[in-house]
């Protein structure tokens, strides 16, 4: 058994003058306080990476900085799937009795700590160094390739994809910590600057500064009892050139294994937190996970299905697309928001029922996947 006992999240956007360690520390402090614990009670640390401040031992750098001497600590690197991969590992660590309270933390000053070009360049290196990177692709281009194929096979349009950007922005408007506070329309998305067609600027998540953290514990530490009921991973490839066909991507494999591990069915799910680095990522993952039929996710957005008051509220904080994306912390915000929803603490964003949640993260170019079910227990 494992429980998410505390969560912490900074605002995303510009944190001028804050280092990656500063942002990690701020989020960690919030999460530990939320769990009702003291620093000294944390006996495990898992952290992600920082492209701004790369280090071969970031977890111990952080532990020393933060003032913790854990009995278990290391960094984890699975791109955008890192947050959920760390949570899965923390779940197994506490379940196995290796640690009692594992702090999972990610944070980076990716926006103000380096130029946007440097960020785009650093991320493009997920491509193959000999066979892809010399061609000058960017992360949006890798996903642009996937988008072109997905649109071709399933009849999805650019207007369909735009719906996801509008939905995420609408959700972000009710979160004061989100990077963006101006409403957008489908026309705004369609008219935004082309980046890597079919993806345009508003189809892409921003680069942000921010930090997120949670505590995963063997036993609940308070009344907020959110249990990890099951999780699973799948890794089918690294480079888009080597990706399997669209019907064989890792999301479907991971979710099938997570369903088996937890005994939860998609029809049980009341809240969804799904990785949304680009509009196409969200559209594809919703359909791969079974939250919409193939090619029909956009229609469900238009019908209000994923709204705060819809049948399946989705990324109510605004997701990567509009809350922001600071690297590892980016998708961790999805889990923080899920926890707030599950424990009735989401304020004006609160949904009616978030008793069972599905979370899904993706790293690389749909390369690495983690699916996870969380359950509120009384």
């Amino acid at each position, binding site marked *: 058994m494992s429980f998410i006992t505390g969560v912490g999240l900074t605002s995303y956007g510009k944190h001028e003058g804050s280092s990656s360690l500063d942002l990690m520390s701020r989020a960690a402090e919030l999460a530990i306080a939320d769990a009702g614990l003291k620093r000294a009670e944390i006996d495990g640390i898992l952290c992600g990476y920082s492209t701004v401040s790369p280090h071969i031992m970031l977890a111990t750098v952080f532990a020393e900085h933060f003032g913790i001497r854990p009995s278990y600590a290391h960094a984890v690197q699975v791109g955008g799937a890192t947050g959920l991969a760390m949570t899965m590992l923390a779940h197994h660590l506490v379940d196995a009795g290796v640690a009692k309270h594992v702090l999972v933390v990610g944070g980076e000053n990716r926006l103000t700590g380096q130029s946007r070009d440097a960020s785009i360049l650093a991320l*493009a290196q997920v491509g193959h160094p000999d*066979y892809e990177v*010399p061609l000058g692709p*960017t992360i949006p281009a890798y996903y642009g*390739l*996937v*988008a072109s194929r997905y649109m071709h096979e399933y009849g999805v349009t650019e207007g369909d994809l735009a719906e996801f950007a509008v939905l995420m922005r609408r959700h972000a408007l009710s979160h004061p910590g989100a990077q963006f506070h101006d409403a957008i329309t489908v026309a705004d998305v369609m008219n935004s600057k082309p980046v*890597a*067609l079919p993806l345009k600027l508003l189809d892409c998540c921003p680069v942000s500064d921010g930090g997120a953290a949670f505590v995963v514990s063997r036993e609940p530490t308070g009344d907020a009892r959110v249990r990890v009921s099951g999780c699973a991973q799948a890794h089918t490839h690294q480079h888009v*050139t080597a990706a399997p066909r669209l019907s064989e991507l890792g999301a479907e494999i991971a979710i099938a294994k997570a369903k088996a591990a937890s005994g939860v069915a998609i029809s049980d799910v009341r809240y969804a937190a799904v990785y949304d680095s680009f509009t196409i990522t969200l559209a594809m993952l919703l359909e791969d996970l079974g939250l919409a039929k193939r090619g029909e996710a956009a229609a469900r957005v238009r019908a209000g299905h994923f709204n705060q008051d819809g049948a399946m509220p989705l990324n109510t904080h605004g997701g990567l697309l509009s809350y922001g994306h600071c690297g590892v912390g980016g998708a961790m915000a999805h889990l923080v928001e899920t926890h707030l929803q599950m424990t009735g603490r989401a304020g004006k964003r609160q949904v009616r029922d978030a008793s069972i949640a599905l979370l899904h993260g993706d790293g690389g170019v749909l390369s690495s996947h983690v699916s996870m079910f969380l359950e509120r227990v009384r």
Partner: protein
Amino acid sequence: MSGEPVMADWTKGEPAIVYQSCKACGGLQYFRRGFCAVCGSADLGEHRAGGEGTVYATSLVLRAATPETRAHVPYNIVLVDTAEGFRMMAHGDNDLAIGDKVIAHFERFTGRLVPYFAKSK
């Protein structure tokens, strides 16, 4: 590889597309390795591809990340399924569509030789 010399390709500055085939299981691979990624056999043959293929996916890049690549904008990144049966990334004409039959030649991009596909016929 069986001690055979490595065939130079565009990644080494030669105007050629090279792939490997496994003599044990028949698997094809485009990313060069010393073994077959399907079965692990080290008994590989290397071949020059004919350059014909079909467009699998495209993305026209208008926002590049470096001054060197920015000078080429817009450029079309394409995935091509080759006639030989492996998939590769390359550049292509800006108006290529999925399903187009294409043929490769080589162009300069940021001072390097890269495979470039145009419609065949």
